[in-house]
């Protein structure tokens, strides 16, 4: 038995024969089967630009509007009711322990991406004080990353979730390069990491700065779309 990090109920761990025979510590899944079911992995056809699940493999309606500023995103899970409930507890209620639920899928996804440098989307100072953690780096275990971006001091904080789509698209550049870290970007392939791809505005602002810093290519990975 092990305890589910989300619902905190105990559940039996079912092991495969190779796992039992392997001379290794047994894997402890963080989520019970029913909590695991609340998260829907994106499978099959998806938009080649933003990674959303859809019936076809053509660029989706939202992405058509971004043709001038291309950015390829890969997303792991659908941003449905279950993922919203997860984010609500992890990010907004600040339940840092829930980071464990997505560490393994993220680790697998990162190993399939081609990049030289991983740059997580930063949080501002105020959020750091109140939330106490960056929700994006919380999902990383021992993967190296560079905090090459910081939120500008003058960036007025209003939660993205409180804005309409039109407002979000007009958001001014919130990021700046971190002087001591930025030189590492020169000539590199950079992977940006964020929690949710909603309009793509935030990631494109980040990508703009990373290109400015001299990166050769920028792609992104988000937990949800």
């Amino acid at each position, binding site marked *: 038995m092990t305890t589910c990090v989300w619902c905190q109920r105990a559940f039996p761990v079912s092991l495969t024969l190779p796992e039992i025979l392997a001379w290794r510590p047994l894997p402890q899944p963080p989520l019970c089967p029913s909590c695991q079911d609340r998260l829907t992995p994106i499978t099959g056809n998806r938009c080649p630009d933003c990674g959303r699940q859809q019936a076809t493999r053509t660029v989706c309606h939202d992405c058509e509007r971004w043709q001038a500023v291309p950015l390829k995103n890969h997303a792991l899970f659908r941003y449905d009711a279950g993922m919203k409930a997860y984010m609500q507890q992890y990010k907004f209620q*600040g339940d840092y322990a829930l980071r464990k639920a997505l560490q393994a899928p993220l680790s697998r996804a990162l190993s399939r991406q081609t990049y030289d440098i991983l740059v997580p989307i930063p949080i501002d100072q105020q959020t750091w004080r109140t939330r106490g953690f960056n929700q994006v780096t919380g999902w990383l275990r021992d993967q190296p990353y560079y905090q090459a971006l910081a939120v500008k001091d003058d960036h007025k904080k209003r939660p993205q979730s409180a804005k309409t789509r039109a407002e979000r698209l007009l958001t001014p550049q919130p990021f700046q390069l971190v002087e001591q870290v930025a030189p590492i970007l020169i000539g590199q392939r950079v992977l940006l990491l964020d929690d949710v791809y909603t309009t793509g505005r935030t990631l494109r602002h980040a990508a703009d700065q990373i290109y400015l810093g001299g990166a050769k290519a920028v792609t992104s990975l988000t937990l949800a779309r």
Partner: protein
Amino acid sequence: MNELSEFFGRRMPADRVIPELGDGQVAVQRIGQRYQCQRCQQWLAETDRLPNGAWYCRQCLQMGRLTSQTKLYTIPEPNRFPIPAASRLTWAGKLSADQQRAAEAIYRQVQQGKDQLLWAVTGAGKTEIVYPALDWALTRGWRVAWVSPRVDVCLELAPRIHAAFRDVSQCLLYGEQTVPYAYSQLTICTTHQLLRFERAFDWIVVDEVDAFPLATSPLLQGAITRAEKETGQHLYLTATPGEALQREIRRQTLAVTYLPLRYHGFLLPRLQVRLAWRWRQMLAKQRLPKGLVRQLQRYGRQGQRFLLFVPHVRDLPLVMAALDLAGIRGGASVHAADHDRTAKVQAMRDQRVSFLVTTTILERGVTFPNIAVVILGGDDAVFSTAALVQIAGRAGRSADFPKGEVTCYVQSQTRTIRRAQVMIDRLNRQGKQRGGHT
């Protein structure tokens, strides 16, 4: 923005500096080698730490996260309520002779400052029995909480109590409430919400004291104790007191008032047990015991509406499919996490569906006037003695239909079922002595 009155008799974090609140108390404190949450009193795990160095409590996270960097503030309860010249009771109903006797006992004992238990059968009308004592408490300017571990019970109670004491300030608190908190003389809330209170109440009425999760949760029991003033007292309401309460009764630390008869004077329906061989294996093949099918088809012909209880949520789709195959249609299934739960219960009330298939969540609080009750798999461990008595108590509630049928299909007779039958029979014997009819 916080109002000062939000801190009366409570433990709350503040959203700004309020000089009147004083220094406050650190919400998550180091005690010895460990950290303890000062709201829910639970100990933190070694891993409950944030990258910024703060410790945080996961146990009461749903009420807003507390960390070792948060402070909690309290203003001692000032009882800032108007003292009226006359009764505050605006309830026009009338108590039966039996209810009246119980009401008087509670009224007397509350004046004597006693902790009490009202042991009343399901459908005895226990809420109204408390009104005279509650009226007395409110006219003295007492701050009172009426709490239940079950949110359904709170939601059902709030409008009734509001109508019964129209001129008393009241607020309803539960996890998903949207109305903001307001300092009120009468608080109706889930036991969880009491975690935010500190020596606030002169009297706490605990409805369904034996219900899950209160009965097994030291956290919630502690919340009640701390929400009560040192000079305060409490009244437990139950139809099925558990072992711990029965021990308190024997030790006479609780004053007990019995009410073995329903308000309409009829005895409780008995729990009929019928054998159903291998019902679980049959259910896996979407089939139900023959006797059960015949019984439900008869209900269908008679237009008798019914509740069918099953042990687990995962049984619901199978039972629904089996009913459909047997031609028993026009019902719905409902369980605790069901998003349409309220709507489905309402549909049953409005007679838009003819039956509900459900798990133990509908065991209490929910009443339908003329209903037959069937339990499939009453020998499953999820059905405690208290749950079975409560489930049986869904039948025969209304004066127009005082006799209800309660049937329990089992593979084997268990001690829990036996005990439930014994409890019902014992209450009925007492009821008969008081002139109850079958």
